[in-house]
């Protein structure tokens, strides 16, 4: 029982309308949160590609957000326009992400988690220690917001629309990628790497590509993040962010296109909705994640699917690839 196409289009249009109208009813802090949601969604989309679609676990996404953010900060505070940061950060993150993929060819799952975790910590250490470049713990201040073809994004609402625009572009590109032959190959890589190889999928190339593209998206998110907060320092890009992004992808639903949107919404907006509980919101979030993972490891969207069609086989998408259906 699939949701009819028309209903999906209507729902999609309504969501977009909501996103466009929302900032006009909100205070600056609310608009900031929406922009933050957009930025985190981009990073989560990248991680979803690497983890959810290609099945490669990465705890290093925060490092790429950091690389993107510092690239943007350093360039724009020197007077360079933001688009140069986009180009440089994307290229840098792509290349480094590609290199990070090599360990993924040798080890899998928990070992890969630790390698990427170590990499992320190393990047954090570099950001913190190399003061001559990054100003270390003092951070970089006064990061300007860009001017897009004459339109200034200085005001919160304007910058929000800028973020939304980038998110729209990234979403469209990712949608196209997933639906392309590459998307099919990534899914094969995740579901059954041995079979994939035997039908000609170059598992090496596609694994590296999944890492590279996912990381590049992390970099893009970082380039947006810097002018959003206008002051960055290394602790923002420590392991906690990597864990947070991972949780976003899983909570939303790994391997589902809308997963990152939902997961980022829960992670960024939930603390605000739970404001009334004061300091407890993180505790409640953590409990929520633990319960969700036990009940439905395919995340919220997986849960929604299961409720929609209870009779079909609910294969957990985030589980490691299994041997078809014939394993003894």
């Amino acid at each position, binding site marked *: 029982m699939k949701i009819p196409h028309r209903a999906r289009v209507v729902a999609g249009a309504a969501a977009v309308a909501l996103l466009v109208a929302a900032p006009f009813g909100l205070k600056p802090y609310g608009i900031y949160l929406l922009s933050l949601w957009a930025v985190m969604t981009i990073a989560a989309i990248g991680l979803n590609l690497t983890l959810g679609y290609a099945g490669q676990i990465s705890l290093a996404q925060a490092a790429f957000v950091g690389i993107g953010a510092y690239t943007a900060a350093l360039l724009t505070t020197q007077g360079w326009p933001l688009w140069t940061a986009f180009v440089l950060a994307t290229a840098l993150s792509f290349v480094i992400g590609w290199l990070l993929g090599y360990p993924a060819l040798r080890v899998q799952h928990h070992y890969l988690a630790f390698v990427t975790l170590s990499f992320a910590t190393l990047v954090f250490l570099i950001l913190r220690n190399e003061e001559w470049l990054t100003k270390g713990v003092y951070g970089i201040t006064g990061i300007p917001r860009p001017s897009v073809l004459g339109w200034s994004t200085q005001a919160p609402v304007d910058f929000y629309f800028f973020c939304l625009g980038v998110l729209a572009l990234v979403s469209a590109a990712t949608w196209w990628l997933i639906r392309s032959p590459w998307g099919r190959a990534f899914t094969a890589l995740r579901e059954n790497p041995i079979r994939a190889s035997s039908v000609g999928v170059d598992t090496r190339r596609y694994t590296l590509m999944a890492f590279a593209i996912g990381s590049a998206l992390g970099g893009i998110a970082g380039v947006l993040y810097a002018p959003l907060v206008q002051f960055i320092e290394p602790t923002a890009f420590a392991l906690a962010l990597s*864990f947070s992004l991972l949780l976003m992808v899983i909570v939303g639903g790994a391997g589902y296109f809308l997963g990152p949107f939902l997961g980022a919404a829960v992670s960024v907006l939930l603390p605000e909705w739970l404001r009334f509980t004061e300091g407890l919101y993180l505790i409640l979030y*953590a409990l929520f994640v633990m319960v969700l993972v036990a009940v439905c490891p395919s995340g919220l969207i997986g849960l929604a699917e299961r409720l929609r069609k209870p009779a079909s086989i609910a294969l957990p998408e985030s589980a490691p690839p299994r041997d078809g259906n014939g394993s003894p």
Partner: protein
Amino acid sequence: MADFLQLLVAGLATGGIYALAAIGFVLLWQTSQTINFAQGEFVMVPAFFVLAAMKLGGVSFPVAMLIGLAVSLLVLGLLFKRLVVDPVIRHGVLPLVISTIALAIFLKEAVKEFYAADAQPFPAAWATTNLAIGSAVVSAQNLVIILVAVVAVGLLQYFLNATRTGRRMQATAQNPGLARILGIPVERMILYTFLINAALVALASFLVSPIYLAKFTNGETLGLVAFVAAIVGGFNQVRGAIVGGLLLGVIDNFVAAYLSAQYRAAIPLFLLIVVILVRPQGLVGRAEERTV
């Protein structure tokens, strides 16, 4: 030379604590394929059980330590297994990783909210004097830590190798399916590993907190070190965790003193990456027979 000795002793002491955290980590992985990303927080929390017992229950420190140990066994051992691990492990390793990450956040924030955000002094169970060995000044505390860690590990090794239950646990770790067929109560053996881990982390907590104070953020660094120690040493052997822990403790101290305090954390990470890529079974471990 005096410096060297001091650093070595300090390194072995820190290493001993790391080893305790790493051993539990390895045991959990071996017997139940549990990767506990909250291991660092597990080392942070027991100290707070003790502090809470003293503050709220008004009991003396020794009694509080016993209470702390008991509560650790209950919460970090039994409840952890029943409430967090069991419901999730059937979905695979990644969901459990997520769950333990969330658990780490939960424990950290719970301590911060319900006890205190700032660092709390933690009493030491022994004198904090310094001893002179030749021209070196060595902290008695470090020596005690080394001693306690050695005794604890020794007891554990004895238990695992020389007692019937211990050997059954080893069998469970090596081949749960076969162990079940042989009549070994596998579920109970797995529970024992969780309890042992709880005891080890509690001990590590009591040893480390007097020095570094009890703070809700302690788990972050400790957790990372536990993972690195376990993997560098050898993820599938308790011996590996011991070697890894001691090695990292010593390296950490020497690097901080002679190379760079800022990048002291980087060396273990490099070591980790190199070991995983070149020799995933670790320095002392056997090549992983189980396919993951």
